[in-house]
């Protein structure tokens, strides 16, 4: 017998429609869910809330235990401050398992039955999905409001002004709705980027010999890929010669093997940044990976040129295939069946790791001095574009399972969490980057960043200081529905090329073919 294969979610939707307009509610479905937007006032919130019957905001994120613990006091303080004003808001925070992709997956599932929160954190391409499904609330009326305690414009408190958000963060929340209208899709919340971590105890002598160690700061400033290749090759030579040792905290350490001295954690970020850096103008860089129309365009000569350069170093100096042999100068951690270069750094099998600022504590060790510098560039003389990926989530409000009371309450929470004081606090406690210029320039933040020797916060300060040296060329890839799928497939493609030696054009063709299967437009400029 042929079985029916109805999805229950589809079944629920059908049954819901069969309800002939009867009220759909229950679970977290709110009264007047999905009502037409109207900007209410703080007095409205006061009049419609009480201690025993507060306005409830469902807030979904995907932070783990440790970051959640840093968020909790801020949310508690928000509830208390609101209560002092006679506005009673209860924030129910859900940490959805499975990371932010799990959160998106859950929202996409829940959208069919309106089982979604009032507000959430997510990436711009997730927001593109929510825009497509018609559940994302445009935050423009809130942002543009000049009402005291609500808006981010006009005479609003300086700690809340919209102009104060770091430009590159703000740029990525300005999106278009399905009709092509400009909207504000979210508010920048937790941001990170990629930097280069290095075992300074091992690397500094090589930098010093080349004159690449800045005398004033003691850092490797403005590193280039050429420099990284040279340093990596010399690290290999020292390990092979048995002379790779250093003294740290009074003890002598010796590294006796290295498959690759340098690892680059994210294949997709590596690919995107290498393409942009191989461009001579920003205009070219905006049209080398994906473009503003949501088309994939990386089948082009710039890609081939870049891959040729970077791939050569994945095998350069290879001496064999046993676990004690040298495999090459740099590669993805996948090449040794790991996910992060920090693992090899900690084992003293590698000395340099290019990865997210969110992983700073994993690169630290009690066996060497950790230093952080900026993501390597092709050049700094203006002949090539400078670029490093900016990533992280934004806070958004969903319109489908909210009403105007819960929307305003959620907005007040977002506004509170991203004010100068709180973005500063959240950054210092978690290592995510502050999202406001006023926070970056605050004395509190500067004092924090100046104290790199603090055993508890100094490592985070080192990482943030490195990011501040590359902020001017933060870059993002355009978000569109499916853009995360492009990144995922590029990750796979990079593994096949860098770790398995796949032919470039074949790998690109396969990637294109897979993306086209999902209905993504791919433009081939090679053929």
């Amino acid at each position, binding site marked *: 017998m042929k*079985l*029916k294969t*109805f999805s*229950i979610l589809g079944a629920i939707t059908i*049954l819901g429609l069969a*309800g002939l307009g009867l*009220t759909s*509610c*229950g*679970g*977290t*479905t709110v*009264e007047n869910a999905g009502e037409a937007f109207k900007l209410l006032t703080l007095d409205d919130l006061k009049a419609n809330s009480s201690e025993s*019957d*507060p306005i*409830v905001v*469902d807030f979904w994120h995907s932070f*783990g*235990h440790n970051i959640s*613990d840093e968020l*909790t006091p801020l949310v508690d303080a928000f509830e208390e401050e609101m209560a002092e004003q006679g506005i009673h808001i*209860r924030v*129910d*925070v*859900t*940490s*959805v*398992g499975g990371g932010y*992709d799990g959160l*998106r*997956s859950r929202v996409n*599932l829940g959208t069919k*039955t309106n089982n979604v929160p009032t507000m959430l954190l997510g990436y711009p391409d997730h927001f593109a999905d929510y825009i497509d499904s018609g559940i994302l609330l445009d935050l423009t009326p809130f942002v543009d409001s000049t009402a005291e305690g609500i808006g981010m414009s006009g005479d609003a408190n300086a700690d809340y002004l919209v102009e104060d958000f770091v430009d590159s963060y703000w740029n990525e929340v300005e999106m278009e709705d399905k009709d092509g209208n400009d909207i504000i899709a979210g508010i920048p919340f937790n941001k990170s980027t990629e930097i280069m971590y290095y075992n300074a105890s091992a690397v500094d002598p090589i930098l010093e010999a080349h004159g690449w160690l800045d005398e004033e700061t003691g850092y490797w400033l403005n590193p280039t890929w050429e420099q990284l290749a040279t340093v990596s090759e010399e690290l290999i030579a020292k390990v092979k010669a048995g002379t790779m040792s250093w*003294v740290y905290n*009074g*003890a*002598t350490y010796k590294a*006796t093997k290295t498959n690759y001295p340098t690892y680059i954690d994210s294949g997709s970020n590596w690919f995107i940044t290498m393409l942009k850096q191989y461009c001579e103008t920003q205009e070219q860089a905006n049209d080398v990976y994906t473009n503003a129309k949501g088309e994939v365009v990386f089948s082009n000569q710039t890609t081939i040129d870049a891959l040729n350069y970077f791939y050569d170093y994945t095998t350069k100096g290879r001496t064999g*295939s046993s*676990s004690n042999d040298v495999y090459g100068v740099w590669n993805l951690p*996948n090449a040794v*069946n*790991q*996910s992060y270069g920090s693992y090899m750094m*900690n*084992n003293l099998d590698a000395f340099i790791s290019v990865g997210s600022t969110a992983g700073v*504590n*994993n690169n*630290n060790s*009690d*066996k060497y001095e950790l230093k952080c510098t900026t993501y390597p560039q092709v050049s700094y003389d203006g002949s090539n574009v400078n670029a490093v990926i900016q990533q992280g989530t934004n806070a958004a409000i969903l319109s489908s399972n909210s009403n105007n009371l*819960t929307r305003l309450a959620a907005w007040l929470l977002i506004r509170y969490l991203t004010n100068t004081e709180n973005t500063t606090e959240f950054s210092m406690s978690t290592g995510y980057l502050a999202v406001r210029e006023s926070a970056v320039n605050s004395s509190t933040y500067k004092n924090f960043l100046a104290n790199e020797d603090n*055993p*508890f916060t100094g*490592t985070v300060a080192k990482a943030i200081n490195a990011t501040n040296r590359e902020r001017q060329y933060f870059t993002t890839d355009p978000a569109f529905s499916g853009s*995360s799928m492009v990144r995922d497939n590029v*990750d*796979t493609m990079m593994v096949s090329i860098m770790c*398995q030696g796949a032919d470039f054009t074949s790998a690109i063709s396969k990637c294109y073919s*897979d993306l086209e299967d999902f209905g993504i437009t791919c433009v081939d400029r090679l053929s």
Partner: protein
Amino acid sequence: MKKSVLTLSLLLTLTGLAACNGRGNSSANQLFDVEPTTFDHYYSNKISFADMNIDVEGKTFIDDKIEKVVYKRDGVDKVGIKYVTDGDTAVFYTSGTQDSFTNPLGRSYSYFTCRFLSIDTPESTSSIAPWGKKASAYAKSLLENAEGIIVDATSIDTSNFENPRDSYAAGCRLDSNGTRWLGLIWYCPDGKDANDLNNYRCYQLDMIEEGYSFYTGNYNPKINGNINYVYNVDQEEEPILYSRYEETFGSMTLADIFFEADIRTSSLEQRHIGAEDDPDYDYSSEPKQMSITDAIANYDTLSKNNTYVALTGVITRFIGVNFYFEDANGTALYVYMGLDAKSIGSLFKVGDTINIRGRMSEYGGQIQLTDIVWAQETFTKVEGEGAVAMPDPIQITSNDFTIARLEELQGKLVTVTLNIEHKGNVSKDYSYTLNCTETVKDLTAAGYQYDSMGIRINGKLSPTYSPEEGDALVGEKVTVTGIMSKYYEEDLTLDEGENFASYQIVVGNRPTTDGVNGTEIIVVE
């Protein structure tokens, strides 16, 4: 704000009877064909592995490996439990090969670590979250007592990869750390016939319906988009499963069942899935000060209640960033810091007295302090009156190698002379054990085979002893100073309850002076 995660409830009103209330509050009205009043495992009671139509006989989860590269696989296997890490991770024996080891009996086993797909239970190891220990205890009650266990990854679609090695490297079969294999777990409960696939229950579903995990969806960014791991690859062969609409629709996917079970169980508003505060979790921001002696004496209560404690003792040895410390009564305890980066080595040295905050836990049969928050207030140096004197190492001989005496010495700093006979396998983080000719007498008397006293070199030592240094010590008579410890190594040939401890001396971070590394393993001339 609620301290724990919140329910994610889904309901539809088909009759119009439900009245939405409040200003964003949940409605109490629910519509399930069987309204839950308790954790009734409504769905998991109806599904078995037999429903999945997957052939498991003679299959191996990981089939072949050459130089750490996996070349082929069946992706499904009847496995044995080595140990349960927590609610969503366990280590299994398999007939394939992964992380092989040879026990002192010379018997080789193969095992792999598995991260369970589609669920995410609260933490209970290096950090301890509300409901974490309960989830872990429930996991152990299911898996450690199971008559049989099946790990199934056949639902992971690897068709985009030319060979399994590519799928492995691309991460679609491993978790984001690249170290744990992904799979669905089916288990045959105690007392049931493990040869009958109808007796194998879905572990993930039981964990959701016991309220210890949300259904986390199936998204994996490493492969093409929203691949659903819980679906069968061949949807034409999708099995009949059950839902509250079974009379109408008959069939649904296992993923849909997971999602529905999540929603239905959430509606109880209890436990982790229902955002209930864990009644046995200490949410205090200020710890309870007590001695290490009292903490160990009251371990059961403190552990059950997840009490936030602060303990004071003198640091006797660092093992990497972790350390042993003991109080004025001579009671010792191990502190597990959780991350290699959490080094207090620049703030404290051996001989310093520390007051440290955390929670009591147990790992590998040993009590420890864990859930160490990396913040200044967690660590206080105690000087003057409250400081604890650094004990001298206890001089022992092989005559002390009796179970009773070694139990007295647990966690204590000892010095002993031993003859090194053999160096064990070196793990990927360069840890290894030096086995000695001296044996633990009671173990031998019991016919027990794991009786060799060991010297344990942890690869995370700062600095460590290289494997080459270990080779050079084989055949030597040495005087070693370190912490007396024990470990458990399961042996499938032993009956249940016969996994006795073995004993070893754990060497601490090497003493160093002006860049010259010392040693605590001194060859006797």
